[in-house]
């Protein structure tokens, strides 16, 4: 089996209910960050607390790309998803039908292979319609 490496360490974990994205929250001003930051970018406090996010959010906005990005061949979908905890996340979208994506849709996080890097599979998060 090929080696698997996460696209970014510490961004997601597996749970019995399925994959979960891991953010952190500033204990001083309450701002939530994904991916995690070591110091709050809003109030500069370094009292950050890890926060496991819900598995579902709502699509804030999206696009379908028709020219290649660094790792994805067209067509591919990308977008921002609003999580109920109050953080917006950029992610690739996993769609079976590119005409069915709508702002406000319920989306769920999935973990899968994003691309191949030499002999390693790069694993990361995507959102797909519920």
């Amino acid at each position, binding site marked *: 089996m090929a080696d698997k490496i996460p696209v970014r360490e510490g961004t997601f974990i597996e749970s019995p209910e399925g994959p979960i994205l891991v953010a952190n929250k500033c204990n001083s001003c309450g*701002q939530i960050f994904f991916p995690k930051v070591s110091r709050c970018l809003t109030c500069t406090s370094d009292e950050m607390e890890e926060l496991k996010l819900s598995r579902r959010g709502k699509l804030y906005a999206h696009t379908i*790309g028709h020219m290649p990005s660094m790792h994805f061949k067209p067509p591919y979908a990308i977008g921002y998803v609003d999580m109920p905890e109050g953080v917006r996340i950029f992610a690739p979208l996993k769609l079976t039908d590119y005409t069915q994506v709508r702002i406000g849709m319920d989306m769920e996080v999935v973990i899968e292979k994003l691309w191949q890097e030499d002999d390693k599979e790069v694993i990361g998060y995507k959102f797909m319609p519920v």
Partner: protein
Amino acid sequence: MREVAVIGVGQSTFGKFPDKTVVDLGREAVTAALRDAEMSPKNIQVAYTSRLYDVMVTGQSIFKEVGITSIEMVNVENACSGGATAFRGVLKEIADDRYDIGIAVGVESMTTSPIAGKLIPPSKDDLEGQLGLTMPGLFAILANRQMAQHGTTPEDFAMISVKNHHHGCLNPFAQYRKEITVEEVLASRMICDPITLLQCCPNTDGAAAAILCSMDVARQYTTKPVKVIGSALLSGDYKYLQEDMTLSRMGVKTAEAAYEMAGVGPEDIDVVELHDAFANEEILRYEELGLCKPGEGTRLVREKATWVGGKIPVSPSGGLLALGHPLSASGVRNIAEIVLHLRGQAGERQTPDAKVGLAHMLGGAVAGLEAGACAIHILAR
């Protein structure tokens, strides 16, 4: 702080010139600015140069070609705001009384750069870029949000491209001097839905230069100096990404700072040049600059208020969409355009009786932040 004036501007022709070097392009712009100011190169005391894709100390190589050596020279990079950052660097040197006369040049040869014909590649630690966020991708996401939130249509976006290409026809320096229609814009190749090819700025080679000096010195050269009355440069924050992404927090904040310094408001602005890298972006900028209320930018498009001859002409040069976008050059170039309007020298695209003008630039993607740098300059005659 001393009053500072612009007394010379110049640019190279914008287009695709794979046989010209960065030094060739820079020399064209610097020579044109010196000629415009009727100034000898020996009078230049400080020089700032901006470029993204070139060797080290580009400025020294350019200025050597026109005989400028052995003075303070600084090379800066601030993505697409680099040119405006170089301009501001010279502005501060003179306002702070370190020097009386300086020059800012922005230059880029996109066709000979490592990214010729490609998208700007994300850095390794740019997680969002690695996950597929590109510049057209980001602006396409914002376009979809503008449509859902403000009722803007693909035809509205296309109309901005039609306008700026029309303006390009009025500018002898423009890369594209051809009228296009809404139908042609919408039928061009899809890049990131709903942004089509003709709604994206092209790859461009070019340079622009501006000569600044203290007001006392300016009067020795001209009876019509153009004053720099406002200047602001800010980086983006994280909060923007968590709030209404159709309203640029860094844009609003930078505009507020520039207006406050200038002692004018958006209602006083007669002509605007801005960062229209993608057609839909222009509407976002109308709103953060206060040309209309947030969410109402589409109305300005439908009223044709921002055409040459309209209430508040925007990007009369043709903008990045038609004049072209040599990244680091654009920030100096769009200030130069404002100077021409304030002098009454903008030819067919002249804004009648322009008294105050504004030049806006935006640059750089940083994962987790709105953007790298927003620069706004306000000039007056």
